């Protein structure tokens, strides 16, 4: 149980909320996400089997594993979109349910899931509008966010006029709209080409550096997981379990494309691959 | 299974409820209806306008005319339904066959598609059926060799025309729905167009054909009934509706019996098309299982 609670090696110590001296039990010390003994069954299928995972504030953690191993289910359990059959999930010290009602997280899926009848800006404004933010404030925030993801010129376009990568950026801007302290992403770049993917990875890191939010990131891609993460959680299928947790240490320097060529990066990729292989070993 | 019984029960209850509402209105509704500003808004509730449900069922068993040996209304309605069924099926099959053939040609010849498809589509938005009274005049006037135009032929032609356009449009869409990658694959095999049609395009069109045929079936029934009425073709259920409607003063329940027959005819044809559709659904389900 405690084996998965690794002290995050590469977490920037200066992230907001972690700057203060950790007071035991105080809000600053509460982890961003605590998953304890979570089991989830769908009929006869055990999608998650005894998951324990603690994610500290400001950390970026990737979930990786063969398809069907329960990555999406785990993310949805944290988001309170799926209820655990057993076990407990706490988000920022609250129950996952409370955290959802309080809008403590933003979420993005593999499908951008934009509302095609709204403009790009209208889509980014959607969560704000739903939660009663005034028109002017909404406009302003949407403008900021579209600036952030480089789509300022497309505010009045319809989603159908955008490429897949642009739509995904709108979805990310929408997930960030309410300045969530936790960002949940389920293979958000899964359907994109390699170039777009790498650009968006860099953008995600920039956003995270600017906001200091915690990120839980589901992916299929080992290099993507390594490039983005402080820790990579490797899961095994049938039943879904945490097989290994690989800390990634790429030095304290900012991650840019040059990192991908370093020996440290290659070493982490090898390590994650080995952990993934081990999950496939015949039992 | 349980859900199916439950749904059947709900439908049965709904039908009973509608009949009860009918009788209920008869019990409390104003005999001469209710008017507002000279326009009658509530229907008359007298026995002539709205006969009792039992009355309608009873009418089926009564003889058609007051003479010994007369057939019952029920037999007359059944005979009418079968007669119209024959014409509607003939027209429906004919129209569907022509529609399918035209779809194949339009798929093959781009220019033909460009020239004809807009008109076929538009023909669905205009009352083609309106010409029914006009081809009555063809009886006796048109002959092809030994065969002279009969009123039945008018009915079949109208039914066929109404069935034709949904099949042509649906089949063309289906033939064109073959995946571009699969079309390229067939091109790479350098097989004749016939093989592509048989092994790729027609199978791709099957799921599109079922809803098209369902529509064609319903259209053929409406077409046949309206054509019978406006051409004065005797023997069919459409004509019977009109004849019995004219007897509404003496035996008001009869026209309802005829309408029940017309509804049964529509459901019968839909059921026949549904048999084809059910086979298609089973194929689709099997295909999904294989793919999974």
């Amino acid at each position, binding site marked *: 149980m405690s084996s998965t609670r690794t002290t995050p090696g590469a977490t920037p110590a200066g992230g907001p909320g972690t700057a203060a001296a950790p007071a035991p039990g105080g809000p600053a010390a509460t982890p961003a996400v605590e998953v304890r003994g979570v089991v989830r069954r769908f009929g006869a299928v055990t999608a998650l089997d005894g998951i324990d995972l603690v994610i500290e504030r400001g950390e970026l953690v990737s979930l990786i594993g063969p398809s069907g191993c329960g990555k999406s289910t785990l993310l*949805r359990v944290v*988001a309170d*979109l799926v209820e655990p059959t057993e076990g407990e999930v706490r988000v920022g010290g609250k129950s996952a349910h409370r955290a*959802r*009602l309080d809008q403590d997280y933003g*979420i993005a*899926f593999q499908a951008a*899931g934009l*509302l095609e*009848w*709204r403009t790009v800006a209208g889509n980014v404004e*959607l*969560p704000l509008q*739903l939660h009663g933010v005034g028109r002017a404030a909404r406009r302003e925030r949407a403008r900021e966010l579209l600036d952030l993801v480089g789509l300022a010129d497309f505010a009045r*376009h*319809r989603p*159908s*006029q955008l*490429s897949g990568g642009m739509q995904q950026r709108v979805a990310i801007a929408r997930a960030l709209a309410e300045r969530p302290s936790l960002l949940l992403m389920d293979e958000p770049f899964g359907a994109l080409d390699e170039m777009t993917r790498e650009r968006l990875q860099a953008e995600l890191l920039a956003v995270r550096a600017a906001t200091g939010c915690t990120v839980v990131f589901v992916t299929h891609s080992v290099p993507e997981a390594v490039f983005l993460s402080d820790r990579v959680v490797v899961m095994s299928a049938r039943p879904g379990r945490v097989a290994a947790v690989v800390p990634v240490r790429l030095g304290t320097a900012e991650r840019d494309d040059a990192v991908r060529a370093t020996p440290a990066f290659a070493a982490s990729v090898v390590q994650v691959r080995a952990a993934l292989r081990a999950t496939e070993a015949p039992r | 299974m349980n859900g199916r019984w439950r*749904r059947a029960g*709900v439908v049965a*209850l*709904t039908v009973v409820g509608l009949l009860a509402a009918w009788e209920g209105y008869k019990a409390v509704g104003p005999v001469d209806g209710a008017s507002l500003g000279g326009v*009658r808004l509530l*229907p*008359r509730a007298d026995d002539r*306008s709205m006969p009792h449900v039992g009355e309608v069922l009873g009418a089926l068993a009564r003889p058609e005319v007051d003479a010994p040996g007369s057939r019952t209304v029920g037999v007359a309605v059944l005979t009418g339904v079968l007669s119209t069924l024959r014409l509607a099926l003939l027209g429906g099959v004919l129209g569907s066959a022509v529609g399918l053939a035209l779809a194949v040609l339009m798929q093959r010849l781009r*220019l033909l598609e*460009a*020239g004809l498809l*807009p008109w076929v589509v*538009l023909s*669905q*938005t*205009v*009352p083609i059926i*309106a010409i*029914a*009274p*006009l081809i*009555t005049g063809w009886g006796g*006037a*048109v002959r092809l060799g030994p065969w002279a135009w009969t009123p039945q032929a008018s009915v079949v032609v109208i039914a066929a025309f109404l069935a034709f356009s949904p099949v042509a449009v649906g089949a063309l869409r289906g033939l064109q729905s073959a995946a571009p990658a699969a079309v390229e694959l067939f091109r790479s095999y350098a097989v004749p167009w016939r093989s592509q049609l048989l092994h790729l395009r027609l199978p791709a069109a099957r799921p599109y054909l079922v809803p098209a045929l*369902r529509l064609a*079936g319903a259209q053929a*029934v409406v077409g046949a*009934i*309206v054509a019978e*009425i*406006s051409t004065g073709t005797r023997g069919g259920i459409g004509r019977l*509706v009109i004849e019995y*409607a004219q007897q509404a003063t003496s035996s*008001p329940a009869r*026209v309802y019996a005829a*309408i029940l027959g*017309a*509804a049964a005819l*529509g459901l019968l*044809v*839909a059921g026949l098309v549904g048999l084809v559709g059910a086979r298609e659904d089973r194929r689709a389900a099997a295909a999904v299982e294989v793919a999974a």
Partner: protein
Amino acid sequence: MRRARGSGALLLAPVVVALAFLAAWEALVRVGRVAPFVLPSPTAVLASLREVGAQVLAAAGATGLNALVGLVAGTALALLAASLAARVRVLREALVPLAAAAAAIPIVALAPVFATMYGATSELPRRLVVTLVVFVPVFVNALRGLLTVDPVHAELMRSYAASGWATTRWVRLPGALPFVFTGLRLAASAAVISAVVAEYFGGLQTGLGSRITSAAANSAYPRAWAYVVAACALGLLFYAAALALERAATPWRRAGTG
């Protein structure tokens, strides 16, 4: 260049087909291969259309009004029923099979009994027929639209802790609009067709349908065809209006990648 000419030919094709068809028709009648009472020539129909233009317009107005009233009433009822059925399962289980059955049966055959129920001097029987005919496609499509919610959208709204009403307002209703308009487009043509056909079952002699039958009964075939032409024009008008409404109400569906 070749491409441009090719697409020009494709655009011209329907016009060429129509002209060729009319020319062949005209020629057949002129050379006497087809008797005028079997098929009057297009020019004869046109002449008759000019001659009785005012009556044609009046008849088209009467039929058009019946179709319009029935279309509006049927659409309103269908939308109401669909929104209730989308919420209440029992209602859905009761109405969906009935609508499927209604789609298969010849609803116009009800015209004579409506005429006895309301009196043959009223336009109401025909409007009721149109209402019922319109109800079926609008109800079926609207219900399908209301029940179809993109799972990603549903999950997104849940993540926003949005209320059921907010989900309906922002996701379910806009998502259902294209379906509703598909139903309305079908219903608009069906309204005109059933309004014309309902007149074949007797009743007031005001509209296009009754004029077609009476002209045919008097062997005034060119005049009858003139009314048929008007009926087709009315059908196209309704269809075009539904299409225009659809485009205005769902502008995002035109905004494809240009």
